[in-house]
Protein backbone atom coordinates (compact mmCIF):
# COMPACT_ATOMS: atom_id res chain seq x y z
CA UNK A 1 0.00 0.00 0.00
CA UNK A 2 2.63 2.47 1.03
CA UNK A 3 4.63 1.19 -1.85
CA UNK A 4 1.70 2.03 -4.09
CA UNK A 5 1.38 5.52 -2.77
CA UNK A 6 5.04 6.17 -3.22
CA UNK A 7 4.73 5.09 -6.79
CA UNK A 8 1.86 7.44 -7.45
CA UNK A 9 3.69 10.38 -6.07
CA UNK A 10 6.68 9.70 -8.11
CA UNK A 11 4.50 9.34 -11.18
CA UNK A 12 2.96 12.70 -10.51
CA UNK A 13 6.35 14.15 -9.92
CA UNK A 14 7.49 12.66 -13.12
CA UNK A 15 4.67 14.31 -15.02
CA UNK A 16 5.39 17.54 -13.28
CA UNK A 17 9.01 17.50 -14.21
CA UNK A 18 8.20 16.61 -17.75
CA UNK A 19 5.74 19.43 -18.17
CA UNK A 20 8.07 21.92 -16.58
CA UNK A 21 10.73 20.68 -18.92
CA UNK A 22 8.54 21.07 -21.98
CA UNK A 23 7.42 24.49 -20.83
CA UNK A 24 10.99 25.47 -20.35
CA UNK A 25 11.89 24.45 -23.83
CA UNK A 26 8.95 26.34 -25.24
CA UNK A 27 9.92 29.46 -23.36
CA UNK A 28 13.49 29.09 -24.51
CA UNK A 29 12.29 28.53 -28.06
CA UNK A 30 10.28 31.74 -27.96
CA UNK A 31 12.95 33.75 -26.26
CA UNK A 32 15.93 32.64 -28.25
CA UNK A 33 14.94 34.41 -31.47
CA UNK A 34 14.18 37.58 -29.52
CA UNK A 35 17.56 37.48 -27.90
CA UNK A 36 19.03 36.99 -31.31
CA UNK A 37 17.19 39.98 -32.70
CA UNK A 38 18.51 42.05 -29.86
CA UNK A 39 22.14 41.22 -30.39
CA UNK A 40 21.99 40.10 -33.95
CA UNK A 41 24.27 42.42 -35.91
CA UNK A 42 27.33 40.87 -34.34
CA UNK A 43 26.18 37.31 -34.87
CA UNK A 44 24.99 37.91 -38.41
CA UNK A 45 26.85 35.57 -40.72
CA UNK A 46 28.95 37.34 -43.26
CA UNK A 47 27.08 38.29 -46.39
CA UNK A 48 27.29 35.79 -49.20
CA UNK A 49 29.45 36.64 -52.14
CA UNK A 50 32.40 37.39 -49.91
CA UNK A 51 35.75 36.74 -51.46
CA UNK A 52 37.82 33.88 -50.17
CA UNK A 53 41.54 33.55 -50.40
CA UNK A 54 42.87 30.90 -52.75
CA UNK A 55 46.34 31.13 -51.27
CA UNK A 56 47.57 31.51 -54.84
CA UNK A 57 50.02 34.28 -55.55
CA UNK A 58 49.10 36.21 -58.70
CA UNK A 59 52.77 36.28 -59.70
CA UNK A 60 52.51 32.57 -60.39
CA UNK A 61 49.75 33.07 -62.92
CA UNK A 62 50.64 32.83 -66.59
CA UNK A 63 48.76 32.94 -69.84
CA UNK A 64 48.18 29.19 -69.45
CA UNK A 65 45.04 28.29 -67.45
CA UNK A 66 45.98 26.57 -64.23
CA UNK A 67 43.92 24.75 -61.70
CA UNK A 68 43.36 26.67 -58.46
CA UNK A 69 41.69 24.90 -55.54
CA UNK A 70 39.92 26.79 -52.80
CA UNK A 71 37.33 26.22 -50.12
CA UNK A 72 34.17 28.13 -49.38
CA UNK A 73 31.79 27.95 -46.47
CA UNK A 74 28.35 27.10 -47.79
CA UNK A 75 25.25 27.69 -45.73
CA UNK A 76 21.84 26.52 -46.80
CA UNK A 77 18.61 25.97 -44.91
CA UNK A 78 19.79 22.76 -43.24
CA UNK A 79 23.51 22.41 -43.37
CA UNK A 80 26.62 24.42 -43.06
CA UNK A 81 29.53 22.88 -44.83
CA UNK A 82 32.92 23.48 -46.36
CA UNK A 83 32.81 22.97 -50.06
CA UNK A 84 35.94 22.62 -52.13
CA UNK A 85 35.91 24.51 -55.39
CA UNK A 86 38.09 24.69 -58.43
CA UNK A 87 38.80 27.50 -60.86
CA UNK A 88 40.77 27.63 -64.09
CA UNK A 89 42.79 30.83 -63.80
CA UNK A 90 45.05 32.64 -66.26
CA UNK A 91 46.22 36.05 -67.35
CA UNK A 92 44.56 37.36 -70.48
CA UNK A 93 46.48 39.19 -73.16
CA UNK A 94 45.81 42.56 -71.58
CA UNK A 95 47.20 41.26 -68.30
CA UNK A 96 43.84 41.00 -66.54
CA UNK A 97 42.98 37.85 -64.68
CA UNK A 98 40.25 35.47 -65.82
CA UNK A 99 39.03 32.80 -63.39
CA UNK A 100 36.70 30.36 -65.08
CA UNK A 101 34.36 27.94 -63.40
CA UNK A 102 35.06 24.33 -64.40
CA UNK A 103 31.37 23.46 -64.30
CA UNK A 104 30.06 22.55 -67.74
CA UNK A 105 27.08 24.71 -68.65
CA UNK A 106 25.41 21.73 -70.26
CA UNK A 107 24.78 19.38 -67.32
CA UNK A 108 27.48 20.28 -64.87
CA UNK A 109 30.40 17.91 -65.37
CA UNK A 110 33.96 18.94 -64.61
CA UNK A 111 35.59 20.60 -67.59
CA UNK A 112 39.32 20.07 -68.11
CA UNK A 113 41.84 22.34 -69.79
CA UNK A 114 43.91 20.98 -72.63
CA UNK A 115 43.52 17.38 -71.46
CA UNK A 116 42.17 15.82 -74.62
CA UNK A 117 44.63 15.30 -77.43
CA UNK A 118 41.95 15.89 -80.06
CA UNK A 119 41.20 19.35 -78.72
CA UNK A 120 44.45 21.04 -77.76
CA UNK A 121 44.24 24.35 -75.92
CA UNK A 122 40.55 24.09 -75.30
CA UNK A 123 38.32 23.31 -72.38
CA UNK A 124 36.87 19.87 -72.88
CA UNK A 125 33.97 18.19 -71.10
CA UNK A 126 34.30 14.39 -71.04
CA UNK A 127 30.59 13.78 -70.46
CA UNK A 128 29.19 14.67 -73.87
CA UNK A 129 32.21 16.15 -75.64
CA UNK A 130 31.37 19.73 -74.78
CA UNK A 131 33.96 22.23 -75.99
CA UNK A 132 34.94 25.74 -74.98
CA UNK A 133 37.55 28.12 -76.26
CA UNK A 134 40.21 29.41 -73.94
CA UNK A 135 38.06 32.46 -73.22
CA UNK A 136 35.38 30.09 -71.95
CA UNK A 137 33.17 30.68 -74.95
CA UNK A 138 31.24 27.54 -75.86
CA UNK A 139 31.83 26.04 -79.27
CA UNK A 140 28.59 25.86 -81.27
CA UNK A 141 27.59 22.38 -82.31
CA UNK A 142 28.60 20.89 -78.97
CA UNK A 143 26.04 20.43 -76.17
CA UNK A 144 26.82 23.48 -73.98
CA UNK A 145 24.74 26.52 -74.91
CA UNK A 146 26.48 29.10 -72.72
CA UNK A 147 30.08 30.06 -71.95
CA UNK A 148 31.74 28.90 -68.74
CA UNK A 149 30.87 31.09 -65.79
CA UNK A 150 33.57 33.42 -64.50
CA UNK A 151 34.41 33.94 -60.84
CA UNK A 152 34.47 37.46 -59.46
CA UNK A 153 37.99 38.05 -58.31
CA UNK A 154 40.12 40.38 -56.32
CA UNK A 155 43.78 40.66 -55.46
CA UNK A 156 44.93 41.48 -51.96
CA UNK A 157 48.62 41.56 -51.04
CA UNK A 158 49.44 39.70 -54.20
CA UNK A 159 47.08 36.84 -53.35
CA UNK A 160 44.15 35.85 -55.54
CA UNK A 161 40.71 36.03 -53.91
CA UNK A 162 37.66 34.53 -55.59
CA UNK A 163 33.98 35.27 -55.14
CA UNK A 164 30.80 34.10 -56.82
CA UNK A 165 30.74 32.44 -60.20
CA UNK A 166 28.79 34.71 -62.53
CA UNK A 167 27.06 33.05 -65.47
CA UNK A 168 27.83 34.69 -68.79
CA UNK A 169 25.64 35.05 -71.82
CA UNK A 170 26.84 34.02 -75.19
CA UNK A 171 28.63 36.94 -76.78
Amino acid at each position, binding site marked *: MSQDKKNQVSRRQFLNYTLTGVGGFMAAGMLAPMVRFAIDPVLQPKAQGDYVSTGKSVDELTSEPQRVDFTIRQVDAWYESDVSKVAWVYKQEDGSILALSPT*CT*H*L*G*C*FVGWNDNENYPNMFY*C*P*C*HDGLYEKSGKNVPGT*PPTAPLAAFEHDVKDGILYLGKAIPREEA
Partner: protein
Amino acid sequence: MKWNKKDMQKYVQAKEYVDTAIIPLVPFSFNKPDEEQIGLTFQNEVLELFVDRVERDFTGRVFQLPSYTYIMSNQLEHEVDRLNAFYQQINEQPFKHTFYLTFDSSWKRVEPKLEGNLIWTPVMKDGDLTSKETQKIVMDQIKQITELIRNYWI
Protein backbone atom coordinates in the same frame (compact mmCIF):
# COMPACT_ATOMS: atom_id res chain seq x y z
CA MET B 1 23.32 13.18 -60.23
CA LYS B 2 22.16 11.94 -56.93
CA TRP B 3 19.06 10.28 -55.66
CA ASN B 4 17.39 13.50 -54.53
CA LYS B 5 14.57 15.65 -55.77
CA LYS B 6 16.64 18.40 -57.33
CA ASP B 7 18.71 16.00 -59.39
CA MET B 8 15.77 13.78 -60.24
CA GLN B 9 13.97 16.77 -61.70
CA LYS B 10 17.03 17.43 -63.82
CA TYR B 11 17.29 13.79 -64.76
CA VAL B 12 13.78 13.47 -66.15
CA GLN B 13 14.57 16.34 -68.53
CA ALA B 14 17.90 14.96 -69.64
CA LYS B 15 17.63 11.18 -69.52
CA GLU B 16 19.31 10.63 -72.85
CA TYR B 17 22.50 12.27 -71.55
CA VAL B 18 22.70 10.29 -68.33
CA ASP B 19 23.75 6.85 -69.48
CA THR B 20 25.67 5.59 -66.47
CA ALA B 21 24.38 4.37 -63.12
CA ILE B 22 26.58 3.74 -60.09
CA ILE B 23 25.62 1.72 -57.04
CA PRO B 24 28.01 1.48 -54.09
CA LEU B 25 27.94 -1.97 -52.47
CA VAL B 26 28.29 -1.55 -48.72
CA PRO B 27 28.96 -4.52 -46.43
CA PHE B 28 27.44 -4.15 -42.98
CA SER B 29 28.28 -5.95 -39.77
CA PHE B 30 27.90 -5.22 -36.11
CA ASN B 31 29.16 -8.43 -34.58
CA LYS B 32 32.82 -8.38 -35.48
CA PRO B 33 35.70 -7.57 -33.16
CA ASP B 34 35.83 -3.86 -32.37
CA GLU B 35 38.94 -3.25 -34.47
CA GLU B 36 37.28 -4.75 -37.48
CA GLN B 37 34.12 -2.72 -36.92
CA ILE B 38 36.17 0.43 -36.91
CA GLY B 39 37.97 -0.59 -40.06
CA LEU B 40 34.67 -1.30 -41.78
CA THR B 41 33.32 2.16 -41.07
CA PHE B 42 36.56 3.67 -42.30
CA GLN B 43 36.21 1.76 -45.54
CA ASN B 44 32.66 2.95 -45.90
CA GLU B 45 33.82 6.52 -45.58
CA VAL B 46 36.41 5.96 -48.28
CA LEU B 47 33.79 4.44 -50.54
CA GLU B 48 31.54 7.44 -49.99
CA LEU B 49 34.41 9.71 -50.95
CA PHE B 50 34.98 7.68 -54.11
CA VAL B 51 31.40 7.80 -55.26
CA ASP B 52 31.04 11.41 -54.29
CA ARG B 53 34.01 12.42 -56.34
CA VAL B 54 33.02 10.41 -59.37
CA GLU B 55 29.51 11.84 -59.16
CA ARG B 56 30.81 15.37 -58.83
CA ASP B 57 33.15 15.20 -61.80
CA PHE B 58 30.61 13.46 -64.03
CA THR B 59 27.40 14.79 -62.61
CA GLY B 60 25.84 15.30 -66.05
CA ARG B 61 26.35 11.72 -67.12
CA VAL B 62 26.42 9.59 -63.99
CA PHE B 63 23.52 8.81 -61.71
CA GLN B 64 24.57 7.77 -58.22
CA LEU B 65 21.91 5.46 -56.80
CA PRO B 66 21.37 4.69 -53.13
CA SER B 67 23.94 2.33 -51.65
CA TYR B 68 23.17 -1.36 -51.66
CA THR B 69 23.69 -2.54 -48.10
CA TYR B 70 23.95 -6.18 -47.07
CA ILE B 71 25.13 -8.32 -44.18
CA MET B 72 28.79 -9.08 -44.63
CA SER B 73 29.40 -12.68 -45.60
CA ASN B 74 31.46 -14.90 -47.87
CA GLN B 75 28.31 -16.26 -49.36
CA LEU B 76 26.79 -13.60 -51.51
CA GLU B 77 24.81 -15.94 -53.73
CA HIS B 78 21.49 -14.85 -52.33
CA GLU B 79 22.40 -11.19 -52.78
CA VAL B 80 22.95 -11.73 -56.47
CA ASP B 81 19.27 -12.12 -57.23
CA ARG B 82 18.33 -9.03 -55.29
CA LEU B 83 21.01 -6.96 -56.94
CA ASN B 84 20.02 -8.23 -60.36
CA ALA B 85 16.47 -7.17 -59.60
CA PHE B 86 17.73 -3.64 -59.03
CA TYR B 87 19.61 -3.87 -62.28
CA GLN B 88 16.49 -4.90 -64.18
CA GLN B 89 14.57 -1.95 -62.92
CA ILE B 90 17.34 0.58 -63.44
CA ASN B 91 17.60 -0.56 -67.00
CA GLU B 92 14.03 0.28 -67.74
CA GLN B 93 15.53 3.77 -68.01
CA PRO B 94 17.87 4.49 -70.89
CA PHE B 95 21.09 3.60 -69.04
CA LYS B 96 23.89 2.01 -70.98
CA HIS B 97 26.30 1.24 -68.15
CA THR B 98 25.65 0.12 -64.62
CA PHE B 99 28.59 -0.02 -62.23
CA TYR B 100 28.81 -1.53 -58.79
CA LEU B 101 31.58 -0.02 -56.74
CA THR B 102 32.93 -2.00 -53.81
CA PHE B 103 35.91 -2.94 -51.65
CA ASP B 104 34.39 -6.27 -50.70
CA SER B 105 36.24 -8.99 -52.61
CA SER B 106 33.51 -11.54 -51.92
CA TRP B 107 31.68 -10.08 -54.89
CA LYS B 108 34.48 -11.23 -57.15
CA ARG B 109 33.38 -14.81 -56.66
CA VAL B 110 29.85 -14.18 -57.85
CA GLU B 111 30.79 -11.65 -60.50
CA PRO B 112 29.91 -13.88 -63.48
CA LYS B 113 26.33 -14.08 -62.25
CA LEU B 114 25.99 -10.32 -61.92
CA GLU B 115 24.37 -8.20 -64.54
CA GLY B 116 26.20 -4.92 -64.78
CA ASN B 117 29.89 -4.18 -64.21
CA LEU B 118 31.64 -4.82 -60.94
CA ILE B 119 34.40 -2.41 -60.03
CA TRP B 120 36.31 -3.90 -57.15
CA THR B 121 39.38 -2.22 -55.79
CA PRO B 122 41.41 -3.04 -52.69
CA VAL B 123 41.37 -0.61 -49.78
CA MET B 124 43.39 0.04 -46.65
CA LYS B 125 42.12 -1.93 -43.65
CA ASP B 126 42.03 1.19 -41.57
CA GLY B 127 43.53 4.63 -41.76
CA ASP B 128 43.23 8.30 -41.06
CA LEU B 129 41.46 10.31 -43.71
CA THR B 130 42.90 13.55 -42.40
CA SER B 131 46.46 12.40 -43.02
CA LYS B 132 48.13 13.64 -46.19
CA GLU B 133 49.44 10.21 -47.18
CA THR B 134 46.03 8.59 -46.91
CA GLN B 135 44.49 11.41 -48.90
CA LYS B 136 47.04 10.93 -51.62
CA ILE B 137 46.41 7.20 -51.86
CA VAL B 138 42.68 7.75 -51.96
CA MET B 139 42.98 10.47 -54.60
CA ASP B 140 45.15 8.21 -56.76
CA GLN B 141 42.62 5.43 -56.53
CA ILE B 142 39.78 7.76 -57.40
CA LYS B 143 41.71 8.82 -60.46
CA GLN B 144 42.10 5.24 -61.58
CA ILE B 145 38.42 4.57 -61.15
CA THR B 146 37.48 7.65 -63.15
CA GLU B 147 39.84 6.53 -65.89
CA LEU B 148 38.26 3.10 -65.87
CA ILE B 149 34.76 4.50 -66.20
CA ARG B 150 35.84 6.82 -68.98
CA ASN B 151 37.22 3.83 -70.84
CA TYR B 152 33.79 2.24 -70.88
CA TRP B 153 32.45 5.39 -72.53
CA ILE B 154 34.80 5.29 -75.49
